[in-house]
């Protein structure tokens, strides 16, 4: 498949934002000691990333002026569900940041043991839920495309979740260090752990895709039961949507080279930098690596329809 930079930026930016939000809420529940301003600014950074992702996504649409229609088919389309969830998460994040900024903490529920659940915590839990749901939506958009075997697996969802969490916690570690927060150690530790988990899951999917076999062949594509079929011509000498959209520029060599690159720069190097106490550098390094990872994810997808487009003739 041809990687679209709009989608590469969208998925990496909102992934980091979702991870950051979950990291902030986790930190809030873990330590709780930080000031409201810490979470407010953190929420604002996440909101900025979400909005940047939304801007990037607009460039993917040929007719963005009717983009609102994309929210109508949430019953059947994961893409539609994502289109609904991103603004919902933006709104929740805005509320989360505002509530923290003004220090509004009315008690919403008092539990049996006397523990109080206040408004920031309720919003934090809602933000976490929405972020997790959005990870599932983004992953399922690709995992439900049956005709690209490299995507059509539950591991796609797992990877979107783990890589988003890893980059989000790394960003949270960088943010905590810049702010001189006590949460810095917690965030760094979690980021290293999540980066290692993401590396393992992504490497497993890479291996799965290399060893897998395509489900269809030219036999079933044209319904001729012969062991030797080759295409003489696809029917036209020029190019068409089908010969451009479903082919990665650069070919398999680029995919192989960038796979090594993203495994090193997206996972190994950031983990080392985090352990060395340089989370800011780790996040920048990991983000570049994840851009390459997303490029490879798209480029490595081989679509069944390519069976019909093998020879210009």
């Amino acid at each position, binding site marked *: 498949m041809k990687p679209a930079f709009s989608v590469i930026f969208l998925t990496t930016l909102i992934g980091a934002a979702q991870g950051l939000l979950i990291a902030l809420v986790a930190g809030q529940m873990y330590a709780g000691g930080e000031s409201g301003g810490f979470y407010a600014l953190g929420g604002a950074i996440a909101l900025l990333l979400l909005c940047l992702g939304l801007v990037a996504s607009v460039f993917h649409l*040929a*007719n963005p002026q009717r983009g609102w229609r*994309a929210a109508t*088919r949430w019953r059947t389309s994961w893409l539609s569900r994502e289109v609904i969830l991103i603004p919902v998460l933006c709104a929740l994040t805005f509320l989360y940041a505002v509530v923290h900024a003004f220090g509004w903490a009315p008690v919403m529920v008092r539990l049996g043991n006397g523990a109080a659940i206040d408004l920031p915590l309720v919003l934090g839990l809602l933000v976490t839920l929405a972020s997790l749901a959005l990870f599932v939506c983004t992953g399922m958009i690709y995992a439900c495309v*049956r005709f690209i075997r490299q995507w059509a697996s539950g591991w796609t969802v797992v990877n979107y979740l783990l890589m988003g969490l890893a980059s989000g916690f790394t960003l949270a570690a960088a943010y905590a260090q810049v702010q001189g927060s006590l949460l810095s150690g917690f965030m760094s530790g979690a980021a290293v752990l999540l980066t290692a988990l993401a590396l393992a899951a992504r490497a497993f999917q890479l291996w799965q895709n290399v060893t897998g076999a395509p489900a269809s062949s030219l036999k079933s594509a044209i319904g001729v039961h012969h062991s030797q*079929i*080759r295409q003489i011509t696809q029917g036209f000498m020029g190019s*068409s949507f089908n010969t451009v*959209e479903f082919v990665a520029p650069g070919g398999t060599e680029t995919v192989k080279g960038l796979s090594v690159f993203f495994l090193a720069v997206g996972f190994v190097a950031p983990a080392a930098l985090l352990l060395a106490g340089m989370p800011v550098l780790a996040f920048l390094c990991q983000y570049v690596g994840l851009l390459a990872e997303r490029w490879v994810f798209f480029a490595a997808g081989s679509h069944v329809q390519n069976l019909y487009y093998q020879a210009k003739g």
Partner: protein
Amino acid sequence: MTKKQFALVIDLNVCVGCHACVTSCKEWNTSGWAGPLPDVNPYGADPSGVFFNRVQTYECGTFPNTETIHFPKSCLHCEEPPCVPVCPTGASYKRDEDGIVLVDYDKCIGCKYCSWSCPYGAREFDPVQGVMKKCTLCVDRLYDQTIEEERRKPACVLACPASARIFGDVNDPNSEAARAIRDNGGFQLMPEWGTRPANHYLPRRKTTTTLHPDELVRVDNPLKAEGEKPRPAFTTPTIDGVSSW
């Protein structure tokens, strides 16, 4: 009672690969309801264009024992179209009344997600209008009362000089299309995906003739008239010379 499902039945044994269906489809649809079908850089080094129908050519076997197969490919109007539920706007839809899968250009946002969900590569994106386009089965011909009744068929069917394309309701057992599928071993493309394409293809059939030696050499020759007759002499009168008129 099964639903009406218009579709094409394409006879691979008859198709000669002339591309008449391709050009007539492009002509009708680029100027009609589903158009335009723009060509980008049509006279340049790398032309690119939108077509609803393509004729491809395949070869089976190794030389000299090969067989050439011309294979027309357009939207198959699946009974379980995977491209429809993934559309986030509802622009991609399957008509209840006749099973034709269409795109509402006024709703399409050009995200191309439907094309990823088609294993047949039947959808082609129009970069000029920014919407996804595909075969409409000439829905603008089928119900047009101003066209004489026998010509209310897709343009490709009317254009085919070999009559390799049959149009009809494949769910009506009495239609010509359903009968062709039933009688001639009609099959669907990539049935393993469960898309249940409405368009069917008829397989290649071996056409053989058995010749016996006595059919090549004439055995009954009562006048023993072998070889050519002797040429007449130069002075022999011709029929023109002896007849009075």
